[in-house]
């Protein structure tokens, strides 16, 4: 079986980017990725754009990005799976390469969420759930994860301090990531005294809307070996879905889509949770990272709170998680996030993560969730 590898990565600065259009953001990351792969644009034969279109005034984002990056007349398409769009794009690029249709594919995550006004964002926020039976009661995105958190706290004794500890860790690493939106450490006390959002969540339990782009260039094994001597291989892919509404969710204390996607990815890569030296997981809310520890098998179900309390997800712990700051500190430009996670794991496996480097990282993982669990993609990467 021929492999698919990542030969180039690029990552722009995340945050409120009032200085750039979405295609300009894409360009920053694209330029970096080309330089990193040391290839010419002409060698790319297709592009997959990862974005959630409703945040932009520009309709059909793929068109402006392809034009501005000078990639016409190459083939391009958009993938959308809410906050998991980035990993959905990586997956379709893998398929395009393995099918033999394309040899070198650019995956371009680009999102400008702050283009919308606050009322427009609030209106969108009112339709994040299932709109026929749930959104009519004013449910919100934090509200959904808050309801999962409440049940987890009740069933397993997870505490608000443990939730806050996730935010503290991710801000600690965000302070060491030059591309992060928030580069300042916080304390448990600061998190616990922040304004309420949706009980039990406060401001510091929630990630922030952000603008930003990230790019990975993927290639067939044959081409990858010619392009780069530091290729990182995408050897395990898992993808699954669960119900849109909480009304038909099999469980409230786990994301079934994540459990299934992890099972598939581990099996395909021939590894288990204990082999994962570094992971980037979807911490859109603090509880989401705790669920990820459990759903990925880094600890037993119900033990996620204890896992962070014991600092097992810090560098030096059992499974370093989100040592780039995660969505919490890095910011969450929703379409870009999965691509951003991929760049971080590639960096870690290459040994290029600087002061955030996990020593001896040879197998890494990304866990990218769409919505409140409707979609999940788990990818396993290897150094050799």
């Amino acid at each position: 079986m021929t492999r698919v590898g990542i030969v180039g990565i690029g990552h722009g600065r995340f945050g409120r980017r009032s200085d750039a259009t979405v295609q300009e953001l894409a360009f920053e990351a694209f330029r970096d990725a080309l330089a990193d792969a040391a290839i010419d644009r002409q060698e790319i034969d297709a592009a997959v754009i990862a974005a959630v279109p409703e945040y932009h005034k520009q309709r059909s984002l793929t068109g402006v990005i392809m034009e501005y990056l000078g990639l016409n007349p190459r083939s391009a398409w958009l993938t959308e799976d809410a906050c998991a769009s980035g990993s959905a794009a990586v997956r379709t690029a893998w398929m395009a390469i393995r099918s033999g249709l394309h040899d070198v594919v650019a995956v371009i995550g680009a999102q400008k969420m702050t283009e919308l006004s606050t009322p427009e964002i609030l209106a969108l926020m009112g339709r994040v759930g299932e709109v026929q039976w749930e959104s009519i009661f004013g449910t919100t995105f934090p509200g959904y994860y808050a309801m999962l958190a409440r049940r987890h706290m009740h069933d397993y004794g997870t505490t608000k301090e443990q939730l806050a500890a996730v935010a503290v860790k991710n801000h600690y690493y965000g302070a060491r990531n030059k591309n992060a939106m928030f580069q300042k450490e916080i304390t448990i006390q600061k998190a616990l005294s922040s304004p309420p959002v949706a009980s039990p969540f406060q401001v510091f339990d929630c990630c922030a809307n952000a603008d930003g782009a990230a790019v990975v260039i993927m290639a067939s094994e044959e081409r990858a070996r010619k392009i780069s001597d530091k290729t990182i291989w995408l050897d395990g892919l898992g993808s699954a879905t669960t119900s849109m509404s909480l009304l038909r969710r099999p469980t409230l204390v786990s994301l079934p889509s994540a459990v299934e996607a992890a099972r598939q990815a581990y099996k395909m890569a021939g590894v288990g949770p204990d082999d994962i030296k570094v992971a980037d997981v979807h911490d859109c809310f603090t509880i989401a990272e705790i669920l990820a520890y459990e759903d990925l098998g880094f600890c037993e179900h119900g033990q996620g709170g204890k896992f962070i309390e014991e600092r097992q997800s810090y560098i030096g712990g059992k499974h370093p998680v989100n040592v780039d700051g995660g969505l919490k500190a890095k910011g969450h430009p929703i379409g870009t996030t999965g691509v951003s996670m991929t760049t971080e794991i590639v960096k870690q496996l290459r040994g290029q993560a600087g002061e955030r480097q996990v020593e001896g990282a040879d197998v890494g993982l990304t866990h990218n969730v769409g919505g409140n669990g409707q979609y999940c993609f788990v990818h396993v990467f290897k150094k050799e």
Partner: protein
Amino acid sequence: MFSWFGKVNFTPHTKVGRFADYLKDGHLMGSKCNSCGHTDFPPRADCPECLSGEFEYSEWSGRGKLMTYTRIDAAPTGFQDMGPYLIGLVELEEGGRLVAWFGQSIPESEIELDMDLQVVPRVFDEIEEIKVYYTLEKPGTTWKKAPA
């Protein structure tokens, strides 16, 4: 008239539109498949088991248990005048679940997971057009029902 359902309604057109008419008359209705007898709440026009598109409405008692809840402090468009409000997810005695606001019979301090609840059909008094919904109340709470 499904457009009656909810303070803000996003899906006025559905095959289970009469759900809102029943709710206005005080009846909480699920669906029962005419072919295999599968029941569902919220009601579905299309049976997830046997794929039949023939169904009838069937009345639910509205009794259930609280699975989880949250207090929304940051409200979206259309709900900002109501905030903060309490939302609960309820497992219904006859099967299925619903999301609803807590009503006045249960203050936040008395909310506990797994508590017994009564779902009560409501009509918005303060809105001129017909707008129906339901609230979560203490068991034993009664309400007016028109003949089905």
